């Protein structure tokens, strides 16, 4: 029983982490909550649905194509809306509400083009396998392999390459990075693209693992919000820690409380953290008090 809870937590966390990384990274460079990550998840999910179902392409191609599209969306939003708002020195609150608007647009488009019912990628159950004390389906095993793979790849880039060093510099001190000759604009584009790419990937994975409906976008970005706050917003290790912690907490709460209370529990945890430790487990102190 306990092993199943852990296993479920691992799977959930692996999905959450893909959305949380980009979200947390965006906060670290832009200092705002980017709700449009929900739009990236939706784009990834529905694009892969169309490509996989209508055109019957190989799943791997669908995954890469859909995630790439999501990445492009992230890039576009940055070049148009974020750049404009930044130029006019808009406060983080305005970014928050604007990205909420973007998410609403994405959700509305999903409803218009695909309807509000749930879409299934794969009819019928997946083969499942028994391990010591828990069961995993084939797709869940794939998730537990793919997600950490992308995590490791991203971490390697973030910590071991020049591009990663530039990303870290910008998130530390944007002005100084600019003065030191780092092309802030270009690096930001890499950040927004890769964050959105991972979120789109999460959308595809969710599509294969369960169902997709327009409400998925908002749900997904809220996972990212809670996971980031718990783990420490603005930091990569924080995002990973927060996402997996949230996954385990959710898995645990479903085992103890009736399923329909899960959102309440998750958000109570969020509020608790916001009030008592807004910088999360690993984060640095941020000014969130007036």
């Amino acid at each position: 029983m306990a092993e199943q809870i852990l296993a479920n937590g691992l799977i959930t966390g692996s999905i959450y982490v893909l959305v949380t990384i980009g979200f947390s990274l965006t906060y670290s460079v832009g200092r705002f909550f980017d709700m449009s990550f929900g739009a990236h998840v939706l784009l990834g999910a529905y694009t892969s649905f169309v490509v996989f179902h209508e055109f019957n392409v190989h799943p791997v191609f669908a995954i890469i194509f859909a995630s790439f599209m999501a990445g492009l969306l992230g890039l576009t939003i940055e070049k148009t809306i974020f750049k404009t708002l930044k130029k006019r020195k808009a406060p983080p609150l305005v970014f928050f509400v604007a990205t909420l608007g973007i998410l609403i647009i994405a959700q509305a488009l999903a409803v218009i083009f695909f309807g509000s019912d749930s879409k299934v990628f794969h009819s019928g159950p997946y083969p499942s396998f028994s391990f010591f004390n828990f069961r995993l389906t084939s797709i869940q095993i794939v998730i537990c392999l793919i997600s950490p793979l992308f995590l490791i790849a991203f971490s390697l880039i973030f910590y071991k390459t020049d591009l990663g060093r530039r990303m870290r510099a910008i998130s530390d001190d944007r002005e100084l990075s600019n003065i030191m000759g780092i092309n802030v604009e270009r690096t930001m584009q890499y950040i927004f693209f890769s964050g959105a790419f991972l979120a789109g990937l999460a959308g595809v994975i969710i599509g294969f693992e369960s169902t997709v409906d327009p409400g998925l976008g908002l749900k997904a970005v809220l996972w990212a919000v809670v996971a980031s706050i718990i783990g420490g917003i603005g930091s990569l290790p924080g995002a990973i820690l927060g996402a997996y912690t949230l996954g385990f907490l959710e898995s645990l709460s479903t085992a103890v409380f009736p399923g329909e209370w899960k959102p309440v529990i998750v958000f109570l945890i969020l509020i608790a953290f916001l009030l008592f430790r807004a910088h999360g487990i690993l984060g640095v102190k941020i000014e969130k008090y007036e």
Partner: protein
Amino acid sequence: MIAYLLHVSVIVAIYIIAASGLGLMVGFTGLVSIMQGAFLGIGAYVYALTALKMGMPLVFCLLTALMVTGLSGWLLGTISIRLKGDYFALVTFALAVILYNMFNNLISITGGPMGISGVPGFFNSQSGFFLMTWGVTVLLLLILKWFVTSPHGRLLKAVREDEILAAAMGKNVKKIKSMAFILAALYACVAGVLYASFISYVDPSGFTPGESIFILAIILIGGAESIQGAIWGSIVLVAIPEILRFFGLPGEIAAGLRQLILGVFIVTIMVFRTRGVAGAYRLY
């Protein structure tokens, strides 16, 4: 046709009440809250339950609803107030989600997704409701107008413009913010009670987090720090979906289109004109 127009105008009036209360918080005090819909729900459910299950005279039901909502406003406000800007908005949104789930899950109290039906109204005729709702709306708007032009209103604006300075001048910033929060909740309560008695059916779908976003959008689009803003915003945002109805689009596409327009409005206002159409306060 007349009945339809009367119905729509009552809905508009209810939104004006809810939005103007929120406008006090957002426009005058600078606190962007995304949970007004939840307070509407609290007011509606308390009214419905006291009227139906306890058979109290309707005026007492209203008063009970006001008390409960006011208390929740005080409680939830006190914990949220200490966070700034986008963190504050995030907390209120989290609270909206929590409250919506409570409406949905506490089936023994709220009837869950099935809701509560047969809620008694103050009148039996549509025109009666029309007159009463608009009468209440005008009254509440006048009270609001008096409030914002009074020294209280100046206190709110002082807190909005420069909290630290206001505190340095000896003003109790926490109390001022709390007062705005509770007032907004009370206005939402009245709107919720009117809604419950008009539709005579209360269910969670009217108080979703999306509803809270909608009411915030009314203020942002119509204009913050302006009472006309709440009026114009409500009229426009309620009229558009109703007009869409006449185009004969299939239900879901119409709903999606409505959301699309809302989203586009929100983004446009945030990028180009945060004071909205008729407002005076700019977010940046």
